[in-house]
């Protein structure tokens, strides 16, 4: 498990969120989101800047344009999606990747639990 996700780091992450202002997802729990990330996402994604795995790094993903990492080999569908990863867009994509970006290559069925999605977004918002 990534050290970043350990429970002891939650207050630090939360403080960062508060100080950062504005980017935090208001209702999500960052620590629970870290656990969701570890369970659902961490095999293929890192939140370390510049650390791509099978999927691109999700460091500072909120507000980023889709397919904007020049070092990552995106699918044509993702490149042509024209998306910007707002909270709503990211929520929709994580919830149903194949519907949001048909032809994309992320092999993930989607996260249907609304509470987990909210927590995950809070965690991702903290990664900047």
């Amino acid at each position, binding site marked *: *498990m*990534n*050290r970043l*996700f350990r429970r002891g780091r939650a207050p630090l992450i939360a403080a960062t969120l508060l100080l950062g202002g504005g980017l935090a997802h208001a209702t999500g729990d960052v620590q629970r989101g870290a*656990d969701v990330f*570890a*369970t*659902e996402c*961490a*095999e*293929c994604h*890192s939140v*370390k800047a510049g*650390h*791509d*795995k*099978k999927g691109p790094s999700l460091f500072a993903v909120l507000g980023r344009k889709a397919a904007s990492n020049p070092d*990552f*080999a*995106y699918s044509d569908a993702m490149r042509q999606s024209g998306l910007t990863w707002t909270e709503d867009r990211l929520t929709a994509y994580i919830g149903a990747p*194949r519907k949001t970006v048909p032809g994309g*290559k992320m*092999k993930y069925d989607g996260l249907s639990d609304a509470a987990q999605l909210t927590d995950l977004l809070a965690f991702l918002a903290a990664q900047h």
Partner: protein
Amino acid sequence: MSHTSHSRGRGAGVRLRLLAALTLPLLAAFARDALAVPSFARQTGQDCVACHVGGFGPQLTPYGVKFKLGGFTDSDGKDNKIPLSAMAVGGLTHTAKAQEEAPTDRTGTNNNLVLDQASIFLAGRASEYIGAFMQGTYTGADNKFAMDNADARAVRTLELDGTDLTFGLSLHNTPGMQDPFNTLPVWRFPYVGSSVAPGPAAAPIFDGGLEQHVTGLSAYTFADEHFYAELGSYRSLSPAALDSLGLGRDSYPGKLGSSTSYWRVAFFDDLKKSAFSLGAFGFNAALDPSGDGSSNSDHYRDLGLDAHYQFLGTREHIGTLNASYIREHQGLDASAAAGNADSANGRLNELNLNASYTYDQTWGLTLGRFMIQGSRDAALYADSANGSPDSAGWVLQTDWTPWGKEGSWGSPWANLRVGLQYTAYDRFDGARHNYDGAGHDASDNNTIYAFIWTSF
């Protein structure tokens, strides 16, 4: 791998030519097929822990299962990856009492410090639809290099109404090695073992009896990431082919009949926080020991059930359960006619259970139980004083795997596992006490194996 295991190989050597199909399993012993292929990590951009529980092969996570069923072709989209890896495992083997004879000319009767195997792999994707892993292995105990496991695949995945449907072909050289779960003999616990420890003589033919000595082609499908089905057939390699692969003419098991078949069905569910599978399989083989049709054939019909469960959670605490049961019906017409079996009809059952806990993808503890039971036959099981193939025991292993995780030193090139394994027998080749008529007890073969396993 078969030729690393002198435990069964040594025990089988006496009657190797008498019952090839039964003695080849002896070569498999408990030196299981060690496998760790960092070139796959480099190809996919993944950390080792993505595919392997504890960050070191071969126990697969759900992601690893899907990677294998996808024909080893998944990648991070970047080209120019070199599909080469290497691996070495060695250790100190101590048995409760010294063995009667040294396992090989290069070893002693006890406390052997041995390079159990050093392998090179050609492992990776050739195209979007074709991938392979091929392993060549040097065994230090007998100073030999030979072809080890090989599996080449062609796979295509279609999406129908949002559902993935994978079709694949696998060309391989060991029955069962193509399976994606760690329940069947080739990839089950213990995942590594001493090449110079004693081991039980008997095992079903599907448990290593033909490994690396055949060519198999199977077709499989994986539907909706849940339903797995496979059908295949096998042909023998000729003595000349075995010789050229470094396996030796003397290891020729005989000629497989054209009706030799393998089938497999399983249900798999990846729930992210956990995963499980339930399955069944069958292997039917007719083996002509003469190889030229001049004798009858021995017939084997193996039926198996298997299941596994993994609690994965956030991957900080991982627990796994694996179980398999194989029931073998034997029709030993050729062996009985040659006087190598008293009866033409026999059976052999094999049960394997194990449970593991892994903390922080680093510290592992596994306990396994194995049981082999079968019908008595004094000629067939000549090493047993009462003609029984029965053996049973426990394997306890603890290990430390410091790397293979995100941010690990040298990732994904540097991989290391250090472990301590203890095997305790409560029955060995038919009895707890004096199993061979020479005063040896099952517990005399209790083994401590301290190993270092690395790959890059």
